[in-house]
């Protein structure tokens, strides 16, 4: 069925091309989960209010629940399933396990994708709401716990793994950015 409200789209997910017939209403999150079978991205609220569905879209973190699948056509999507290399955990994943950066694990894929995107934003010199001076002439903000907390605040965790997540992000930051 292809009409005004449905159509075939091409989604690039974790370097793999997928052809999908989607309802225009289908969000990127549902296309990933129901269409491609990548259920690692989670639907915590479906309203952009929790961050559990965070994926990388052309390298930038976005919430896939408010991204329409049709609007994501042409973008390079990276999900939790594509975050690691072949069999090897990325440093950020390794540190989440080592430092217990999760409990129930439901927000974890969103926290991880968000952290990867956030570290790139910080490396690019982006300030945050807790950066003392946003001027480009001021020194770039050090990535300390306060910066990580502010920048990760779009990812809720009800188990309260926040302190461990912050430690894991800080611990992995150097390797992640260098890698």
């Amino acid at each position, binding site marked *: 069925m292809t009409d005004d409200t449905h159509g075939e789209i091409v989604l690039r997910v974790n370097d793999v091309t997928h052809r999908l017939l989607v309802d225009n209403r289908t969000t990127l999150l549902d296309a990933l989960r129901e269409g491609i079978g990548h259920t690692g991205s989670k639907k915590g609220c479906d309203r952009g209010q929790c961050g559990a569905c965070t994926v990388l879209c052309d390298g930038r973190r976005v919430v896939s629940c408010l991204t329409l699948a049709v609007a994501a056509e042409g973008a390079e999507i990276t999900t939790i399933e594509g975050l690691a290399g072949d069999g090897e955990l990325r440093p950020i994943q390794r540190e989440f396990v080592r430092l217990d950066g999760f409990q129930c694990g439901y927000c974890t894929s969103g926290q991880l994708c968000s952290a990867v995107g956030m570290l790139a934003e910080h490396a*690019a010199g982006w300030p945050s709401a807790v950066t003392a001076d946003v001027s480009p002439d001021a020194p770039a903000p050090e990535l300390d716990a306060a910066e990580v907390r502010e920048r990760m605040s779009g990812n809720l965790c009800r188990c309260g793994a926040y302190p461990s997540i912050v430690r894991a992000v800080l611990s992995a930051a150097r390797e992640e950015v260098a890698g």
Partner: protein
Amino acid sequence: MKEFAYRRATEVRDALTLVAAGDGARYLGGGTNLVDLMKTGVEAPARLVDVRFLPLDGVREAADGGLVIGATTTNSDAAAHPEVRRRYPALSEAILAGASGQLRNMATVGGNLLQRTRCGYFADPSQACNKRVPGSGCAAIAGEHHNHAVLGWSRHCAATHASDMAVAMAAFDAVVHYETLDGPGELPLAEFYPPVGDTPDRETALPPGALITAIALPGSAVSPRSRYRKVRERASYAFATVSIAADLDVRTGSARIALGGVASRPWRARRAEAVLREGPLTADRFRAAADAELSAAEPLPGNGYKVTLARNLIVAVLTELADRAPA
């Protein structure tokens, strides 16, 4: 969510034509607000015209020493842009205080100006709301209005405007540029959001079908020491209870102040600005300026604290700006 058609526009004129064709077509930017409202049934467009691929992206220099921010520039890119940070730091701070990193990566500057109120009654189609269904009433005024307006509201609607970015833009006298099939137009931010009156559903002064193309920040408003401060019920990732964008020239007493979270639109605090122009910038004058602005406040039974909060915030931020100013 109702079924809808989706089109990507690559030319501004195509986008205008597709929306002008009617059928409740809407422009789709980042979708952070529109898609959400479609999920709750508040919005039900028959067609979405995706404008993110139009050549409206990026920040460029304006002839007057100001900046022009393209409408499809993401909030993140606008906030991170070196010249925005250098000349209009309060704007960068305002954008960074809004939503989350993910949402700022998606949301566009044009779309941000058009975001709808976060009033819980507006978001719930089974409740009365004059903004959503004109004439249906306002459930908030008799109901839960803890975070509703204290300035400039009417008995038809007490909802607040949710944008942080727009508050800073109001302080900087930004000008909204748009296109229509009949040609381009522009609206100063002060006129962009009409007063609530008895038409809370009419949220902007844009002509029907108009597409925002850019927002111009005047060179006359360049303020390297401007400041945005936001107070909310969580340290991050929450809408403003009260916020303020301010810049202050300590030599002349010239100030630009706008408040967020207190009215149906970014609230330009012109009374406070007038008081500051009148004399030396003492602590008393800051208090007098704040009092002058809030003298017009009409709190509802459940949100009087916002008047106190807004008053304190004006004084606190003016004090901070005065303290930071070079001797």
